[in-house]
């Protein structure tokens, strides 16, 4: 049953052209798959405790944007308005199914954690539905279960989010909306529950610290971001330090209408939507969005860190700070990365590392666009004694790409996939809701997706070469290795 789904491909299939992510892929499959789940399911909705470990959830939310291409025909009518209390609303009306996806987002991700309190943003979000208003933890869980609602929350560096999927019948919908409103405005942050959840988070962190992939991702993040808030990660110390008053203060400061985006997708009309957002945001204080995070500094030199581990494979990450959400070179980097390591079996890295040499099941590269510069990363895992060889192949592949850029054939193939795959990105309420939340949070133009295929088509080889050479610096790359064969890994 479980552990019995083996995807022929790994991380990187054309579906995830921008930020291929094996975990997200397998999670999606597992979710669709009766009773069969891969052991590496990884989207934040799976486990509450996992959400508390910020390193683990890092950059996952950005994944949504990476999939962003849109129907070539300007098919999606996004309604957008701002409430008098400052909350921003994004709404796609669609009556094809009797259901509704509601999502709230606050600029209250883990990058807003105070120094020494890493994990506060995650814990605050995590406790929202563990008692609120006149409802106990158990009462919230029962009432949402009674109406069949599905809830999920996530926290990444930039965003704290909470989503509900509910039947659109007013009986179910209104119950869910009332609970959501209470959760956002009047969470209990009960001290006993907080201590219990801290203990669970710490236990899960200790277990994670035995796992090479967790260790390499954490070390990568710490290395490329240094003292920037993006580089902060939860520790036992920082989780232990969280007090009820910290959660209350964080909530009061960040969970305000001025810092809120609401996204609605599904079976609802405009009047109902307006009523819904009023209900959800009514009891929140006004407030405002926090000041932007400081810029991420460039690395000043290359580095290599080896973290010994007994695993049979070495886990390798190579990279540096990459691009922001509003980078003018977004599209050249998108298309170029498809060719380098984002385009699954079309990518040079997969061909070189997996197809030609059998060195890894999965190799990827991605740019993760964030509020400030998110990571550019190449990653793979390989048997211990192949560590050095795999590193060399990856470095040669990257250098060659920076030297010569893509071929015309590669460029054509990438464009065909990205543009031809457009309708697939938008073929469900769930996908539309995810894209909507990215557009909302990062304040993208409402027609940003309509421009997408046009912008992809315009990219040429010179654009890619120029963009990559200005963003990817081989003399300032961080290399992290968790695993073995340290001696041969230089």
């Amino acid at each position, binding site marked *: 049953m479980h552990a019995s789904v083996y995807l022929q491909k790994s991380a990187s299939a*054309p579906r995830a052209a921008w930020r291929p992510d094996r975990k997200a892929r397998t999670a999606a499959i597992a979710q669709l798959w009766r009773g069969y789940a891969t052991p590496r399911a990884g989207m934040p909705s799976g486990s509450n405790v996992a959400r508390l470990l910020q390193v683990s959830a890092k950059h996952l939310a950005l994944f949504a944007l990476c999939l962003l291409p849109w129907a070539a025909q300007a098919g999606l009518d996004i309604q957008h308005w701002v409430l008098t209390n400052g909350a921003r609303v994004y709404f796609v009306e669609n009556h094809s199914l009797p259901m509704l996806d509601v999502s709230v987002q606050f600029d209250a991700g883990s990058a807003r954690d105070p120094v020494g309190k890493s994990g506060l943003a995650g814990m605050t979000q995590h406790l929202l539905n563990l008692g609120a208003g006149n409802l106990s933890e158990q009462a919230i869980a029962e009432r949402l279960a009674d109406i069949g609602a599905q809830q999920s929350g996530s926290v990444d560096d930039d965003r704290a989010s909470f989503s509900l999927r509910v039947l659109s019948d007013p009986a179910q919908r209104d119950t869910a909306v009332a609970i959501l409103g209470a959760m956002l405005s009047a969470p209990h942050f009960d001290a006993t529950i907080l201590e219990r959840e801290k203990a669970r988070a710490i236990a*899960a962190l200790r277990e994670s*610290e035995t796992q090479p992939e967790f260790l390499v991702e954490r070390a990568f993040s710490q290395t490329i971001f240094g003292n920037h808030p993006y580089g902060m990660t*939860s520790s036992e110390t920082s989780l232990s330090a969280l007090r009820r008053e910290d959660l209350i203060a964080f909530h009061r400061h960040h969970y305000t209408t001025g810092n809120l985006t609401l996204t609605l997708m599904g079976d609802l009309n405009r009047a109902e939507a307006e009523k819904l957002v009023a209900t959800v945001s009514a009891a929140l204080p006004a407030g405002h969005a926090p000041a932007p995070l400081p810029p991420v500094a460039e690395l000043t030199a290359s580095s290599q860190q080896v973290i010994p581990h007994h695993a049979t494979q070495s886990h390798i990450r190579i990279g540096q700070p990459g691009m922001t959400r509003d980078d003018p070179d977004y599209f050249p980097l998108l298309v170029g990365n498809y060719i380098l390591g984002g385009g699954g079996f079309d990518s040079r890295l997969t061909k070189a590392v997996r197809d030609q040499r059998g060195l890894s099941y999965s190799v990827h590269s991605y740019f993760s666009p964030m509020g400030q510069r998110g990571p550019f990363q190449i990653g793979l895992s390989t048997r211990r004694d192949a560590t050095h060889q795999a590193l060399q192949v990856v470095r040669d592949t990257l250098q060659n790409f920076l030297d010569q850029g893509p071929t015309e054939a590669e460029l054509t193939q990438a464009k065909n*996939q990205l543009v031809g795959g457009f309708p697939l990105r938008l073929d469900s309420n769930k996908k539309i809701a995810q894209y909507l939340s990215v557009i909302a949070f990062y304040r993208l133009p409402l027609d940003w997706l309509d421009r997408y295929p046009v912008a992809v088509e315009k990219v040429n080889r010179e654009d890619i070469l120029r963009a990559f050479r200005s963003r990817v610096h081989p003399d300032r790359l961080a290399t992290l290795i968790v695993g073995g064969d340290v001696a041969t890994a230089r």
Partner: protein
Amino acid sequence: MLSLLNLLPYSRLAMLHRFFLLLLLAFPLTALHAADPIVEKTLGNGLKVIVLPDHRAAVAVQQAWYRAGSMDESYGTTGVAHVLEHMMFKGTPKVPAGEFSRRIAALGGRENAFTSRDHTAYFQTVQASRLPQAMALEADRMTHLSLDADEFAKELDVVKEERRMRTEDNPHSRLYEQLMASAFVAHPYRHPVIGWMNDLDNLTVADTRAWYSRWYTPNNAILVIAGDVDPAQVFAWAEQHYGTIPAREIPARKPQTEPAPQGMRHLQLKAPAKLPMAILAWRAPKLESAHLSRSPHALEILAGVLSGHEAARLPQALVKTRHIALEANAKYDALSRGPALFTADVSVAEGGDLNAAIAALKGEISRVAREGISPAELARVKAQVLAAQVFEQDSLFYRAMQIGSWETAGLSWRDRATWLDGLKSVTAAEVQAAAANWLTDDRLTLAELVPQPMPENAPPTARGSGGRHAR
């Protein structure tokens, strides 16, 4: 890479249950299906083609299912079903190695494949207008696979890396592997889908060729097409691309029946880890083809009562109230070709009392067996099921998966409606009886992960290191 809890084979159960417990109550769901019913047709060569029209988006899904999974393997060549699945991307005379993926990508499509104990399946999602090209490619590799020795050697290395990544370096995967190897003695469900490493070491391209010629024939396959399509047109394309592939005789399948349980089995796995955990697996009835018997329905509802939502008994009692476990889940899968299991898992904090948590978990099951469940609990699970049946309409891929799963399990996609109706009528008394009759110690295999210290070259712990990292 997430926490332990996301790596557990069972950690996603709560969500899965919400997804998979499906039930039709008084909701006007029929309207969703009525416009475009599922239609099927069997070609002259035995290929069954099932079409699910859905016009919400201009997209089509093709899934080719083969009734051949790891349960059809033999000692010495475990893993061959999955290796062959990898080799299906390594070329035919007309479509060289790597070309399948390249051409689907050029069409703007996504594609992949998966292998399970019961079946192997291949799928593509494309713009609906490009479906014929995908069908031509899938049909080509149904019968013309090259199985080149050099490609095989490289791909076998990839699969071994996959096993290292998923299993060797993951104590929870290994625990599950050991559990299955203990829960089943005669039935091939005891073998991992990816195969034992030593069998992979000794696998040959001839083994994959034998596998391919034995099972990859149209009369052992089911083609599911879903999306913005016209069934008549799809059948015509199927005839054109698949209809000419000759059928071959399918070898007789030995039943390899698992003997009845004869008492509890208990095993331990020692591995570097922090959190003690246990998986409990009870031998349980599966959904049989001839009659949709009641016990599976009751067990499905029971799993929902135990851990189908945040307020369910296991998380509520063990995690939230008694603080005796970090996670506790239950799961049942009625649909399988081989013998079924009802499973549960529980984990505790470092140095915690696993035995107490196991006892508490079994105590919750005993409580159901002894005292039954409340009307509110039963209604709550059925409400989950009802809503999930609406939500699943949002995923074309999932709906196609359901058709393929039911068909390869030896049932019909039509039986699913009967199953859902049956869930609707499950009574509290049936749930109580199911807990009492099936979840007994004599039917139980208990697998326990006993954490060991990290070996010498373990990483430094971040305990006490604070939130910031100095470069």
